[in-house]
């Protein structure tokens, strides 16, 4: 009952479950445990001191704040991009579709370099923003832009298939029932796509929290201002302070885990609502 649901093409619940546990353990749980042990290697007061150091706290705020903001921006713009790609046929659609995946393939350091070139004070776009008092490169805004770039494909690629599967007749039904475009969008289309949007959000967010390569170029890495936690960890490592690096890593791990778990629970609830609580 519990372990054996139905016969399937892949044999044996025992074997598959064994593999799952092994892989998760070897690749995810064990290294993370090692991290926690390393962090716990120091005594409690020093641990608290390291992780609550104002410089570290400022970096948490920046990292999670910018990641959250970037993920939010992405669900809006990623949605629009996905919508355009699914609903319209225009010349160059395949080309744009391919460009979406570029941030996946590019080494992130290259993205950072490219963004810096464009947004720095004398860059193509930066030179027009600077006189307006908008500083992008070497400022939190730049970090957010970099994280948005890194996370966008996740949203587009999760929303796209869901949007393709969304039946057109549902929108037509809403129209014949008297709903206007806005009402239809917010009450019919968006709720139906919410699980996909949330997944995209989660992926983009998770990716942004862990991002390092592109930020180091555009952020300028000014402590308390544009220093992100992953960078802080590297700095600690450079100082051979492995324990402190592990401690800060533990805090990142904890925050990330709590946030991802929360999003997953919301999602599971949403899925149950749509696919039906009773399995038949």
């Amino acid at each position, binding site marked *: 009952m519990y372990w054996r649901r139905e016969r399937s093409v892949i044999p044996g619940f025992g074997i598959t479950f064994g593999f799952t546990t092994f892989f998760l353990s070897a690749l995810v749980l064990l290294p993370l445990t090692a991290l926690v042990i390393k962090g716990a290697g120091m005594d409690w007061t020093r641990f608290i001191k390291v992780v609550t150091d104002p410089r570290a706290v400022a970096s948490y705020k920046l990292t999670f704040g910018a990641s959250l903001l970037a993920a939010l921006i992405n669900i809006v713009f990623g949605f629009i991009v996905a919508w355009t790609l699914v609903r319209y046929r225009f010349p160059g659609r395949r080309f744009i579709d391919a460009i979406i995946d570029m941030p996946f393939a590019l080494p992130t350091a290259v993205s950072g370099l490219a963004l810096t070139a464009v947004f720095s004070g004398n860059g193509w776009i930066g030179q027009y923003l600077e006189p307006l008092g908008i500083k992008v490169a070497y400022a939190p805004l730049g970090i957010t832009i970099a994280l948005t770039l890194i996370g966008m494909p996740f949203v587009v690629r999760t929303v796209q298939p869901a949007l393709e599967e969304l*039946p057109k*007749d*549902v929108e*037509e*039904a*809403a*129209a*014949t*029932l*008297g*709903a*206007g475009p806005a*009402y239809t969008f917010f*009450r*019919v289309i968006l*709720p*139906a796509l*919410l699980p996909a949007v949330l997944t995209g959000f989660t992926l983009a967010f998770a990716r942004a929290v862990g991002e390092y390569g592109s930020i180091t170029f555009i952020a300028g890495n000014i402590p308390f201002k544009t220093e992100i936690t992953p960078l802080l960890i590297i700095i600690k490592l450079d100082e051979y302070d492995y324990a402190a690096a592990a401690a800060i890593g533990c805090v990142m791990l904890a925050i990330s885990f709590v946030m991802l778990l929360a999003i997953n629970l919301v999602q599971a609830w949403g899925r149950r*609502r*749509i*696919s*039906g*609580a*009773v399995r*038949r």
Partner: protein
Amino acid sequence: MSITLEQVTKRYQGQPVVNDVSLSVAEGEFFVLLGPSGSGKSTLLRAIAGLVDIDQGSIALHGNDVTHVGARDRGVGFVFQHYALFRHLTVAENIEFALRVRRMKGAERRARRAELLKLVALEGMDQRLPAQLSGGQQQRVAVARALAHKPQVLLLDEPFGALDAKIREELRWTIRSVQRELGITTVLVTHDQEEAFALADRIGVMNLGRLLEVAVPRDLYARPATRFVATFLGAANLLLAQQGPEGIRFGTTPVDATVRQPHIGREHEVVTLLRPEELELSAQREQLTSSYLGRATVEELQFTGALERLRLRLLDNQNAVQTSAGDGAEGRIEATRPQPERRALPLAIGDVVALGARRLHVLPTPLSSFVVYGISDSAALELAQVPLLITLAARMKTRVAACTGEPGCTPTAMPGVAVTAAGPDAPARTAELLRTGANEVLLLNATTDVPQQICMYWLDEPARHATLAVAASLLRHLPAEAVCIATAPAGRRDPRRGQALRALLDARSEARAAHALETRTELIPGEAPQALGDYLASQPTPLLVLGSADIASAQRTLEYLATHLPALPVMLVYREARH
């Protein structure tokens, strides 16, 4: 009138999918649009709902023109084939959707919801999600949802398409009773004739974007006007027979048949409909109570419960028969008989029986079959391969015979539309065919394909009736546009202009009344053959239906067209003027 459609046309990439459809549905009527897939019936329904824009024509609901009103403001209820329920909302929320949009108060909304759930027999299902319901239940919810805002018109697009037979039947009853109870004007689209018969007050049959016939189910079944309707609604045997002054003759045997149109002019070939259940089987010709058709051997027997189905092969007149079922095997005829009849005369495969027709219906279609005239076998064969002719013969489920100059092979002996190759000598040949008994001559090139436009032009008024009938018959089988043409001298003051205009309008109303055919009209300034030729030259792939009551003038016009428009296919319709 609850729904009024006027000459509605919808094109996709230039191809008309709904072609000049006019229709009125009365208040409280249950109207069924029936047709094969791709006939344009769903598109027409969606046009009524405002879900697709139409290219031409107008749509009115309860006297208000809604042609340019969006789906949202038309106030119709629409039920989709795949339910289209909002899957993230409960049954209650789905049903209340239209009411929430209209900001109805909570208590009122709940009362209305309870009322609707009772109507579709789903009480107590309020809090379920669509995924927790069976297909039939989901469609009931969809019906309740479509009725929530008290629409004036309910439109259903193949609502039973995704359900299995048993539930289909049950839901059919529900929908019929809901419709009766509310008295709401309803249009349902289906491809299932049984469903159409069970539900409809009136049925409209569509094919290739055209609304072919509209009638109450019984009339449509017993007295269809077109071949397509005859064969699409139930099983049908189509027999080619001769209609002359003395009545209908099948081969050499005269038979009784209901004829709507009296016989005019020379004897000609007609298409008759014989339903399988109207066939009488008997061991001896003398025992038949109905008119004798011929002898046949039993080829196949099938037990289907209440009825026995037989496939018979006629021993004489073989080439005169087509059946709607099967591969169009010639000479094969289908019959059904109830069990008591089977017990009275048990039959086995190979037995020979005498066939009687209890009831034959003559289709009022002027085109029966085709006879290709060529100077040699190869020329005739080439002509029989012309794309347009192949398409026509296949869609009309009729035969193409050949005549290659052997003695006695004249239109009198070989009835049907005479087909001949276009070319410089074609006008003279056509005149000869007309003189020897042909009523219609089709002039084709080797590459003539399906036309986009069928232009009607008649040289003299007595030929108008036949021209329209032939064109209407062609248009039922070809997805082309219909245009009535008249020519008049360019001068505005010329009285002939007024006459031509009146003739056009008369023709248009005749086409509409007699053939349910919507046509465009064109009054071209200029003198007949030149003006006509110039107009046709400017049209993309036209086919000209040319009517004439005089062989000499027909020949003259054809000669002009043959020199100036050698690629133009022409269907010449000749009717002797009565003196």
